[in-house]
């Protein structure tokens, strides 16, 4: 594991929905400049964990530490305030708006009471250039006419527009073809290289082994292990996902 100070640390978080105990004492560490893959079978609690971090469904119990200090994240506004942005699987884009307006959705810049299109367009363009996005012909294109990969790019660019520190991506490549997956994974890598902490939820172990530094395996609401990708193999991760046990004790 990296020796850098963690951005986000969860220790023993719990979450129940009615009678269902979805998270049973989960630990998670997110470090700057690293991609942490979060894997697990359906129902393992990945989405619940993300929603807890984002404050949509706050955790019932456990420690939530951000940049070394304990914080209370009770709503999406709290997590946004800390610099945590989530890109959901459905991307939450407005098809009828252009790229600029989607990136500034709900947070438009105004000048003298009117929307400052110039400033927004310049900043959106700058952010996309900063991520070396080369596939958008014009930032004034309506999102409806973009491909799946381009839409994903816009959603990710929106997440980093706000000087965010952690970007959580929920299955960003699930609906993409081979070339576009490659393109999005490169973008994910660039986010980490810029010093952000990236959490990547994925079912696709190819993606995980290609782009992630660490992998965290959830099994029925418990964290099996969070280990460095380089120290393990695909087979072990598959075993961990399906049985909840990591072979030969290479847990961190």
């Amino acid at each position, binding site marked *: 594991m990296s020796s850098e100070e963690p951005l986000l640390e969860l220790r023993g978080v719990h979450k129940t929905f009615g009678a269902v105990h979805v998270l049973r004492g989960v630990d998670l560490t997110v470090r700057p400049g690293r991609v942490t893959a979060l894997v697990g079978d359906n129902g393992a609690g990945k989405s619940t964990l993300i929603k807890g971090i984002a404050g949509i469904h706050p955790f019932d119990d456990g420690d939530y530490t951000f940049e070394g200090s304990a914080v209370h994240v009770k709503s*999406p*506004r709290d997590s946004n305030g800390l610099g945590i942005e989530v890109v*959901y699987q*459905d*991307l*939450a*884009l*407005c*098809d*009828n*708006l252009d790229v600029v*307006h989607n990136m500034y*959705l*709900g*947070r*438009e810049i*105004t000048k003298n*009471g*009117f*929307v400052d299109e*110039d400033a927004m*367009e*310049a900043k959106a*363009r700058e952010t996309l*250039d900063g991520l070396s*996005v*080369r*596939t*958008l*012909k*014009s*930032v*004034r294109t*309506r999102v*409806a*006419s*973009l*491909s*799946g*990969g*381009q839409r994903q790019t816009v959603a990710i660019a929106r997440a980093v527009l706000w000087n965010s520190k952690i970007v959580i991506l929920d299955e960003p490549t699930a609906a993409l073809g081979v*070339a*576009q997956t490659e*393109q999005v994974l490169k973008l994910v890598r660039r986010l980490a290289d810029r010093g952000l902490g990236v959490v990547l939820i994925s079912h696709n172990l190819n993606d995980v082994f290609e782009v992630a530094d660490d992998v965290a395996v959830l099994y029925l609401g418990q964290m099996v292990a969070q280990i460095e990708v380089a120290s393990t193999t695909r087979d072990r991760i598959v075993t961990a996902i399906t049985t909840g046990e990591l072979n030969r004790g290479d847990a961190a």
Partner: protein
Amino acid sequence: MSVTTTDDIHDVSPEDSASTLWKDYVAKIRGGDVGSLPAILGLVALVAGFSILRPESFTTAFNFENLIQQSAGVTIIAMGLVFVLLLGEIDLAAGVTAGMAAAVTSVLLTNHDWNTALAIVAGLLAGTAVGAFHGVIVSRLGIPSFIVTLSTFLALQGVVLTLVGERGSVNSGDFIAKLNSDTLPVWLGWVIAAVLVGAYAVLTFVSNRRRRANGLTSEPDLLWALKSGSLAVVAFLVVFYLSIERSPNPQIRSISGVPIALIIIIGLAIVLSVLLGRTRWGSHVYAVGGNMEAARRAGINVKFVQLSCFMICSTVAAVGGLMLASFSGGVNNVSGGGPTLLYAVGAAVIGGTSLFGGKGRVVDAVIGGTVIAVIANGMGLMNQPDSRKYIVTGLVLLVAASVDAISRRRAAASGRI
């Protein structure tokens, strides 16, 4: 679009030729973004057709003024409806809201001798109150606007009957009557046209220059010139035509100049367009109409956007009601009823506003309202009975809604190549 790795990053260069402009435009249309084009083409066809069939009456300056005044009420109601349609909602009560507001103003003026300004404000506020009611029910209780406004559509007809009496009618007074019958002095029409065209040309030119200097997307100069030029031609032709003496007996009473109704329509259209296109709130309206869940997650106050759109719709409808009352010389028991609402919805949709939400402009309502007025006016001059007018207008509305649905399909298809 497949993945491109070339550096095709930068936006259209400003020095485009006419052929690239044309190509871009055709690509946009083929991609399903037809905007008001079908309505404008239809308008041209209708005007040409009626001009050939009834050259002695349809093309007269007198009829042109009449056309504007006939359409004013419906067009204004349609402008308000755009706000609700943009959310993917509907206000079936907009027509009777217009009638009710006009009845409130007329009763206060005629039966209670209120001051004109106060009576007008009271009528408009009555409209706002109806909108607030719709907005609260739709946004808080989540009842579909179709049902909510259908109930007020019925209830408000009862209110109008109560106000004006079962068989009665109420005079709206001199001031209201002038709103949709008087004209501006000829010179003032020219001044207003010149100011509007000049302001548009200068503002867009300056903005284009500034954006280009900052390396942002900008309109090519050629496109700017085409737009400003066409606006100037249309504006000056309209004013010229309306400046012709059109009274049958000029010695007794001279009629010339731009109708006040047209100024009210243009003024409202500008204010509402700025509200929708230039403010943060306006961006949120489009966002809610495009993807309500995304808007909610982005922190937009969806309930407030819904409430405010219904309020604007009904308030603007109240203005339309005053124009209707002015045109018919008063308010009666069917004011704003009958086909008024459907004509207004039709106007917005024919102009290019989508019934599915997220797409539309205030100008669409003006263009669509003109189409509907030309059909009614032209067929009237051809001595066609109301029955046929309804059938033709209905068919035109069906065509407009189909264009909307088909262009959406095209947009969806071209989006994921």
